[in-house]
């Protein structure tokens, strides 16, 4: 895949960081504002896709490591399952941290309010794990598809 024009490349390098930061904001504040792990992960992955479309596969692969993303994807899923198993003393997916006063255990104010990030117990942690999994899974899918298309095209030209 060829690179796009200089204007598009400059705008992308300006906005890419903001896209990633917004995605992580959506992931971390998922339990207080509309959003969550899936949505934020997809926003970050859309940043990866933008990088891939604008810079081409060869240049984008210098910044995005497929093996690292694949590892992060498996890690996210494993963290999610482990967090689910932690509440097994009561039941699977039991949220034992909520309202406990410790990590992420603040009591929420009832009624309509802006919200506190340190509430929800296991839910923000699960959200982080799912966000990590979704962003790296989408990144891996986009990277592998574009890489495969590039290689197949090259092989056909050589024949």
């Amino acid at each position, binding site marked *: 895949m060829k690179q796009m024009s200089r204007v598009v490349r400059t705008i992308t390098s300006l906005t890419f960081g903001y896209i990633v930061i917004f995605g992580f904001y959506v992931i971390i504040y*998922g*339990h*207080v*504002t*509309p959003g*969550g792990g*899936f949505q934020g992960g997809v926003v970050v992955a859309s940043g990866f896709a933008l990088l891939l479309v604008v810079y081409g596969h060869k240049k984008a692969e210098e910044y995005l490591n497929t093996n690292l993303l*694949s590892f992060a*994807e*498996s890690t*996210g*899923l494993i963290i*999610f*399952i482990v967090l*689910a198993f932690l509440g097994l003393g009561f039941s*699977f*997916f039991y*949220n034992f941290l*909520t*309202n406990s006063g410790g990590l992420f*255990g*603040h*009591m*929420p104010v*009832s009624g309509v*309010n802006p*919200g506190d990030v340190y*509430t*929800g*117990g*296991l*839910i923000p942690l*699960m*959200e982080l794990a*799912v966000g990590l*999994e*979704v962003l790296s*899974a989408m990144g*891996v*899918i986009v990277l*592998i*598809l574009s*890489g*495969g298309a590039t*290689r*197949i095209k090259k*092989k056909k030209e050589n024949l």
Partner: protein
Amino acid sequence: MKKTIFGIALVFFVAFMILIAVQMRPFGQPTMSHMDDYFIQNTQAETGVNNVVTGILFDYRGFDTLGEATVLFTAVIGVTVLFREALK
């Protein structure tokens, strides 16, 4: 013959649709709302999150989210296997 059957079927279908549309309940008034009321009133106190949707997705229906994450994992495995030969 075929056209007649289709015409009769279409008449019945449209009549059925109009009947349903006339009998439909007004928007925002479901037949049963016990479960919705329970979630709306108790999610904040029980799970400690302000976002009710997240409370349901990650606490009451955690299995659903686990399945979704597994679907994504399987999609990645499928894509990797499909392009394994091309990426050698």
